[in-house]
């Protein structure tokens, strides 16, 4: 299929973009930064085109539906939302250091989707449970939330790395240039807070659209299915992140560590839950 071939290229484009962001950080030359952003944008546009082509191809097969219906399609869409969100953040903050930490997530999810032999990349017809108008809104809101949490996790790593700056042991000139390129700690912390808020609101919307859908499909808006339960656990974790920030002033290092823990929970909600028995078996 044409779309899977193009998506295969996109994997490499994202890898290239990641490499250029890294060069940019160790050489501090504007050229690499511009090239990295350009490559990332080309990758996102190509991926958008591939998603549209896949959508059209599904109609040619007579089983037309949005490309959001199985593990392959969800991984592709996850990577797409991460890149979209990242490029918006880069454009708003005018800072490229985040790229070296976020783009690898997009690249890894693309590579997993394209290369894993366990993942079926064919366009499949929708089983009865998925034939719902809520499919699109549920998947989009959930993955916007997941993408925000991926960016937040990257910001958490950046915060911890930046914290190492000035400590003994990193004598290498590249390491210090690299660390210097990361924005100041307060900026990272504030940005991370805003991204977590974005992710939290989208996760809430994702759980709610899922509940409405379950109300029509499974007979109850909440059934303690493992994926539902884990999405609630993830929600609790980020609720705790925001609560401790507001009430106890937990910021900085603590916030960074909680952002990373939160994303582990997101990954388990998304992928790990498939190893537990449940109703969400198609994703």
């Amino acid at each position, binding site marked *: 299929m044409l779309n899977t071939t193009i998506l295969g290229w996109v994997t490499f484009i994202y890898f290239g973009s990641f490499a250029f962001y890294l060069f940019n950080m160790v050489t501090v030359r504007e050229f690499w930064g511009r090239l990295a952003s350009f490559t990332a944008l080309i990758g996102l546009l190509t991926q958008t085109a591939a998603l549209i082509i896949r959508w059209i191809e599904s109609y040619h097969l007579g*089983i037309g539906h949005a490309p959001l219906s199985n593990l392959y399609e969800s991984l592709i869409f996850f990577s797409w939302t991460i890149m979209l969100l990242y490029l918006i953040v880069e454009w708003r903050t005018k800072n490229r250091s985040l790229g070296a930490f976020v783009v690898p997530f997009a690249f890894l999810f693309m590579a997993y989707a394209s290369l894993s032999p366990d993942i079926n990349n064919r366009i*499949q*017809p929708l*089983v*009865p*449970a998925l*034939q*719902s108008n809520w499919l699109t809104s549920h998947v989009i809101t959930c993955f916007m939330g997941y993408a925000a949490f991926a960016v937040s996790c990257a910001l958490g790593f950046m915060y911890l790395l930046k914290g190492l700056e000035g400590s003994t042991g990193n004598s290498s000139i590249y390491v210090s240039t690299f660390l210097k390129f990361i924005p100041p700690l307060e900026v990272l912390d*504030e940005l991370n807070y805003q991204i977590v*808020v974005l992710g*939290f*609101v989208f996760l*809430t*919307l994702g759980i*709610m659209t899922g*509940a409405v859908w379950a*109300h*029509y*499909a*499974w*007979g*109850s*808006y*909440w059934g*303690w299915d*493992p994926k539902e*339960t*884990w999405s*609630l*656990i993830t929600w*609790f*974790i980020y*609720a*705790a992140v925001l*609560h*401790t920030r*507001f009430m106890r002033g937990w910021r900085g290092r603590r916030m960074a560590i909680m952002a990373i823990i939160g994303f582990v929970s997101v990954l388990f909600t998304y992928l790990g*839950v498939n190893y*537990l*028995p449940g109703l969400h078996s198609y994703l």
Partner: protein
Amino acid sequence: MTIVLLIVITILSILGTVVPQKEAAREFTGHLDPALAFVLYKLQLFNIYHSVWFIIPMILLSLNLIICSWNRFPTSWRLFHKALFPPPAWSRAFENLPPHRVLFSKRETTEESVRLENLLKKKYRRVQREDTGKATYLSGCKGAFSCFGVYIVHLSVLIIIGGVVIGNLLGFDAYVEIVEGGSSDTVRLQGGDSLKKLDFTVRCDRFSLDFYDNGAPKSYRSDLTFLKNNRVVYKGPVLVNHPVTFEGVRFYQANYGTMPGGEAIIMVRKGNGKASMFRVGAGAEFKLPGSDVTGKILRIEENLMGIGPAVKINIRSAEGDIQFWVFQYIEAIREKNPGLLEKVLLFNPGRFEPYLFSLERIESRYYTGLQVNRDPGVPVVAAGSFFLILGFMVVFFCSHRQMWIKLESERGGTRISITGKSNKDHVGLQRELLRLVREAIREEG
């Protein structure tokens, strides 16, 4: 405290995704030592989400939310009022202003103050003006209500929990299986074997399923009829994702299966004559064309010995009884096992000469499995969810901003200083201040 409760609920939730729950637990406990299984059962580990271990922290969390909100509310209320009527002594707010926030106008202070007051009124709901002999202060404020956002969020969570409780107390969750053509007015409640009688009768007229070319299921559909006092009140299909609601009770397509038996369509031909068709169920009798001989279907098998559908027929004539099987895919069997049908009399469809029997197909009778629910808590949960999102919008995206302008006469003109304060989003405040400065300059001409 809140955090401790959240952690307890989280751990219990994780446990519930690892330990099999409810129906799944029955199989799991089979592998356990009975004594251990009994202890775990008594600890409600197989129904964690409805156990006391889960409900108690949830009650405590609700109480915690109520008490925290109750204690904090007066402070917020005071802050809100203070925000509406800011104190006059702002001199400190105007200390150390960056140069771009201080402007000079050639016009008089009174004229400038009227102009700037009108400018503020365009953007801010509440604008106040105050003259101290030395200077004129203008203040504009918006978003003071944002300090109440957190109460909207907490209240929404309580409303959602309330909706869940209403659903659990007043609603029910049941399941029923109805054979095609059959009807039922009782349903089996989940999590127990008790029955519940409905105020009406449901009949399943037909169950149908459809497949894609690749064999994946495409649709499951039950055509239902709802009757009250034997009168048809409503007819309609139920599909996955398309439940039907009747008198507040929702019916969901949840399951299906085939009934043993069903009906066989058989053809009987006498010599080279015309074939007659019979549609018969197991145990039913039929007369062979042009004779007094009766045939009877003894068994109907969906898949006999793995070689497809078959019926066992008994023929009773003056000479006595003869029995034999008739296979649907007889050509395929003949090709695979040449001579088998002739050798084994029991498999010979032409055993009762001169009649030849053939099986067209077996029409299975399906039963449909319907989930039957009533949940009066749904609108409450929906309302709670709506307010939760509303609360998030207020908490996260609205901030209480105050803009202050100080005007002082200086060298025949006016010195204008602009500053502001915000309870969150300081980047946004800087942007807004910059905009205000720009607008003040633009109107200057």
